[in-house]
C-alpha cells in the first residue's frame, strides 16, 4: 500500500487532504467529525476578533442541471470567542494527536499577532496559516487580501509572527493580484515556512434579474464576495505552478482551489502542491467525499508505482513551459471514428463557426468529415464531441523536427511586420466572406418555417 502521509513543512498528517479554513472548520465538533471520516488535517476557521455576519451569505453558479460549479461567500472570519476556539483546538488535538490542526489567524497589530500566535501554540495547534487572502469584508478593514496585495506589509506581519512562532507558519495568498509570486516571495523573505493558495477570487456570483441585486441578496442588496468551487481550479493550478516554478520561492505549497476529487488533488500535487485543502466540495457533499479522494489517490499511486506523495510532487512542472518554448513542428489532426459517431454534428458547427472550417458534411450521412488540409489541430471538435474517444487528435508530423518561437526569434525568422509572409497566414485556407451568406439557413431554420418562408428545402449546390 502506498503511504499517503505527509510532513508539510514540519506539520505531519496521515494524508494530504486538509479541510480549508472555512465554514466546515468552524468548530471542534465539525473537525472531529471530519477526522473521524478520514480527513488528514484541518485549518481552523480564521480566528481573530470575532465578527458579526449577515444573512444570507452564499451564492452559487449552476451549469444546466449541475449545482455549484462555482460558489461564493460573503461570510467573514470566525464569529466565536477566541477562548472557545482554543479550548476546542486543545480537545481535538487530545483526541487526534496525529492529525494536523492548523490555526488560521487574522488580526491587526503586532501585539495582537503575538498574543494570538502564543495562545494558539499553547492550545496545541500544529501550525499557523496567516489569512492574507479574504477578499471581502475583512480587506476593507485593512486585513485579509489588503495584506496579501501589499508584499511589504505582508512581509512585515510574517516577521512579527516569526518573532514568537515555534510552530510552522503558512502564509495563505490571495489570487486577487496580478503576479502571485510577489506576495509569495515576500512571505519567503519574512521567514514563512510554507505558502497556501489560492484564497477566494473577488466576485459577483450572479444577479437576481427580477430584483436587480447581486447574489447573495441581503435585504435587497448585495456585495462582492469570494469565488471558489470547481470553476476556480484552473486559476489555482496556474498560480500553484507559478509559485512552484519560481526559483526564489522554494517553499512547500498547500494547494487550494476547486479540489473535489482525487483527480483534482493529483493535479495540484503534480504542479507542486504537497498538501491540498478542500472547502466547497465538503460544503456541498459533506465530509464523506474523503473516502473517494483517499481511495482514488491510493489507486492512482498504485497504478503509477508511487510509494509516497513526494514521488510525484511537482512531477508535471518540467513539462509546463513558457509558450515560446513549445515545439511548433508538432502537429496533430482530428480524426473522427465513424463507427462511434452518433451524428450530432456539434463538431461540424463548432469548427465551422468557432474555428477553422475544417469539417464538412456529406450527403446521405450524418457523420462529418475532417478536411485534413484545413485542420490546425486545435482540439475544439474533440472537446465538443459528446462521445468518448469518437474524435481523437492524432499526431501527423514526423516527430523528428523541433522548432520553437524562441528559436525563430533568435534565428530572425519570426514575422515582424503587419503583412509578414513568414507567419504563413496566406497559406491557411479560409473561405470567401460572402460564401457564408445563406449557407445553412435551410438547416438552422425550424422545419416548416423553411417552406413558409418560401425557401426550398436545400439550396442548389453551387
Amino acid at each position, binding site marked *: 500500500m502506498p503511504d499517503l502521509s505527509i510532513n508539510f513543512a514540519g506539520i505531519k498528517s496521515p494524508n494530504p487532504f486538509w479541510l480549508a479554513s472555512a465554514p466546515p472548520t468552524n468548530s471542534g465538533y465539525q473537525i472531529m467529525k471530519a477526522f473521524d471520516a478520514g480527513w488528514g488535517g484541518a485549518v481552523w476557521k480564521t480566528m481573530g476578533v470575532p465578527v458579526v455576519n449577515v444573512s444570507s451569505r452564499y451564492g452559487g453558479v449552476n451549469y*444546466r*442541471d*449541475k449545482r455549484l460549479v462555482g460558489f461564493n461567500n460573503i461570510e467573514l472570519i470566525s464569529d466565536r470567542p477566541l477562548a472557545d476556539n482554543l479550548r476546542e483546538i486543545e480537545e481535538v488535538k487530545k483526541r487526534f494527536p496525529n492529525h494536523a490542526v492548523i490555526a488560521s489567524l487574522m488580526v491587526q497589530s503586532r501585539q495582537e499577532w503575538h498574543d494570538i500566535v502564543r495562545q494558539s501554540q499553547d492550545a496545541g495547534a500544529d501550525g499557523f496559516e496567516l489569512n492574507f487572502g479574504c477578499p471581502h469584508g475583512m480587506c476593507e478593514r485593512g486585513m485579509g487580501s489588503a495584506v496579501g496585495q501589499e508584499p511589504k506589509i505582508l512581509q512585515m506581519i510574517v516577521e512579527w509572527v516569526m518573532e514568537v512562532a515555534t510552530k510552522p507558519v503558512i502564509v495563505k495568498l490571495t489570487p486577487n493580484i496580478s503576479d502571485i509570486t510577489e506576495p509569495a516571495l515576500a512571505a519567503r523573505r519574512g521567514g514563512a515556512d510554507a505558502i497556501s493558495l489560492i484564497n477566494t477570487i473577488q466576485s459577483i456570483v450572479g444577479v437576481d434579474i427580477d430584483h436587480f441585486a447581486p447574489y447573495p441578496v441581503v435585504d435587497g442588496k448585495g456585495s462582492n464576495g469570494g469565488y471558489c468551487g470547481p470553476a476556480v481550479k484552473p486559476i489555482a493550478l496556474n498560480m500553484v505552478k507559478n509559485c512552484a516554478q519560481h526559483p526564489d520561492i522554494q517553499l512547500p505549497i498547500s494547494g487550494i482551489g476547486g479540489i473535489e476529487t482525487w483527480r483534482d488533488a493529483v493535479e495540484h500535487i503534480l504542479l507542486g502542491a504537497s498538501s491540498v485543502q478542500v472547502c466547497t466540495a465538503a460544503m456541498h457533499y459533506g465530509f464523506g467525499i474523503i473516502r473517494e479522494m483517499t481511495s482514488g489517490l491510493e489507486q492512482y499511486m498504485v497504478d503509477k508505482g508511487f510509494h509516497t506523495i513526494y514521488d510525484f510532487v511537482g512531477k508535471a512542472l518540467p513539462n509546463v513551459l513558457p509558450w515560446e518554448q513549445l515545439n511548433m513542428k508538432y502537429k496533430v489532426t482530428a480524426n473522427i471514428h465513424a463507427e462511434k459517431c*452518433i*451524428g*450530432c*454534428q*456539434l463538431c*461540424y*458547427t463548432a469548427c465551422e463557426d468557432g474555428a477553422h472550417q475544417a469539417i464538412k458534411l456529406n450527403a446521405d450521412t*450524418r457523420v462529418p468529415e475532417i478536411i485534413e488540409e484545413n485542420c490546425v489541430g486545435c482540439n475544439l471538435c474533440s472537446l465538443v464531441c*459528446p*462521445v468518448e474517444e469518437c474524435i481523437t487528435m492524432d499526431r501527423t508530423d514526423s516527430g523528428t523536427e523541433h522548432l520553437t518561437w524562441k528559436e525563430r526569434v533568435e534565428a530572425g525568422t519570426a514575422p515582424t511586420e503587419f503583412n509578414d509572409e513568414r507567419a504563413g497566414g496566406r497559406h491557411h485556407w479560409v473561405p470567401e466572406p460572402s460564401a457564408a451568406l445563406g449557407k*445553412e439557413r435551410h*438547416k*438552422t431554420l*425550424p*422545419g*416548416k*418555417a*423553411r*417552406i*413558409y418562408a418560401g425557401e426550398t428545402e436545400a439550396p442548389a449546390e453551387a
Partner: protein
Amino acid sequence: MAEFSTPTTEQEFAENFAQLKPLMNRTEALFESSRCLFCFDAPCIKACPSGIDIPQFIRQINSGNDTGAARTIYEANYFGNACGKVCPTEVLCEGACVYNLQEVKPIEIGRLQSYATTKVIASGKKLFGPGAANGKSVAVIGAGPAGISAACELRALGYEVDVFEAKAQPSGLTVYGVAPYKITNEETLAEMDYLQAQFGYHTHFNSPINSREELIELENKYDAIFLGIGLGKTNALGLPGEDKINCTGAVEFIAELRQQHHKIVVGRKVIVLGGGNTAMDAASESARLGAERVLLAYRRGKEEMGAYEFEYDLAKGVGVSGVFNVAPLEIVGDDYVAGVRFIRTETIDGRVSEIAGSEFVEPCDMVIKATGQAKQTQFLSLIPGLEVDGKGRIVANAHTGQTTNPKYFASGDAWNGGAEVVNAAAEAKLTARGIHAYLSK
C-alpha cells in the same frame, strides 16, 4: 386473472388509466433538458411532421424561458400539448434522437413539450392573436386537429372563421379517440380553450353538416371551405352475427370510453379484431377496464401488424394476449355475443389464405372490431367536382391542400387516409396558407 380490477370510481379509473407521459416538474424538466446535445441540423426536427424546432424549445426550457419554449412549439404546431402526449414519439422525434445510436435513452421530447405548453396554458399567457381583419371568411367543417389548426392559422392571417362540429366538444379524436392513458379530457379541452381564447374563432358544436343545402349555404356565405372531417364509423366486416349485442366498433367503443370513463361496461372476455394501433388501444383499454381475458386476433402474422411495436408491447404489458393468423368467420351467440368462429390462415407470398378444416370457436362475451374506419364518401359526394382517390381519400394539392373543387380545401385523415394528430396539425397549417394564397390572388 385480470391485471386490473374493474374501476368503479373516477379515481380508480384514473389509476387504471395512469398517464403514460405524466407531467414533468421543474426539476425533472431541468435535468432532462440539460441532457439535450443541441445537435446541428437536428434529426428530431426533421422527424417531426410539424417541424417543431425541438433543440430550441429544449434550450429555452433549460434557460428558464418556458414561455418562449411554448411559443416555439405553438408556432409550428397548434396541438403542442396534445402532440407532446399522444404523438408516437418513439418513432418520430425521440426515435430520431442521436442518443439512440449510443444506446443512451433519447431525450423525452414529448414530455418536455407538454411541460412547456401546459405551463403556458395554465398561466393563460397571451402568445398569439388574430391578424388584422382582411374582410374574408372561411368555414371549417370539423373541429378536430385539422380543423382547429386551420382555424388558428386562418385567424392569424386575418380571416373570420366559423368552425362547425357534429359532436359536442372540439379536438376530434384527441378527446374521442385517443387512449385515455395518453391524454386526459381535461388536458385536451384546456388546450382547445387556450387556442380559442388566443385566436377567437367561432365554434358551432352539435352542428353536423350533412346535406347539399347546408353546403350551398356555406358556399354562399364563405370565401372558402376547409374540410377537416376525418374518417367515419368502423368498417363493417360483413360477417354473420355482426349485429349481436356487445359486438362493437373500436372507434365507437373508445369514444364512449373517453366520455363515460368507468361507467362503461366491458365484457369479461373480450376479443379485439385487428392488428393496428387502434386495436392495441382497444385491447389495452379493455384490460384496464377489468376484463379477465383480452385476446387480440389478427388475420396475419405478428410481424405484419400495422401497429407500432411499442403499442403492442404496451398491450402485452397489461395482460393482452395476441392470437395470430386467424380470420373471423362469424360472431356466434343468440342475442348476445358468445364467441367468434375463426379459421386459421397462412401467409404465402404476401397473400393470406385460409387453411381448410381449421375452424374453431373462441368463446367471449364481447367483440371489438378494430378493422379500420370508413371514409366519408357519401358526404364528399355532396360537393360538386370534388374527387376522391381509389381509397376514398380526398384528392388535393400537396402544397396548398386545395381540392378539385377550388373553393374546398382539406387536411387530416380525410386527406391522408388516417394518420396521427401531428400530421393533421401540420397539414392544416400548410393548407391554411394555401387558402390564403388562393384568396389573396
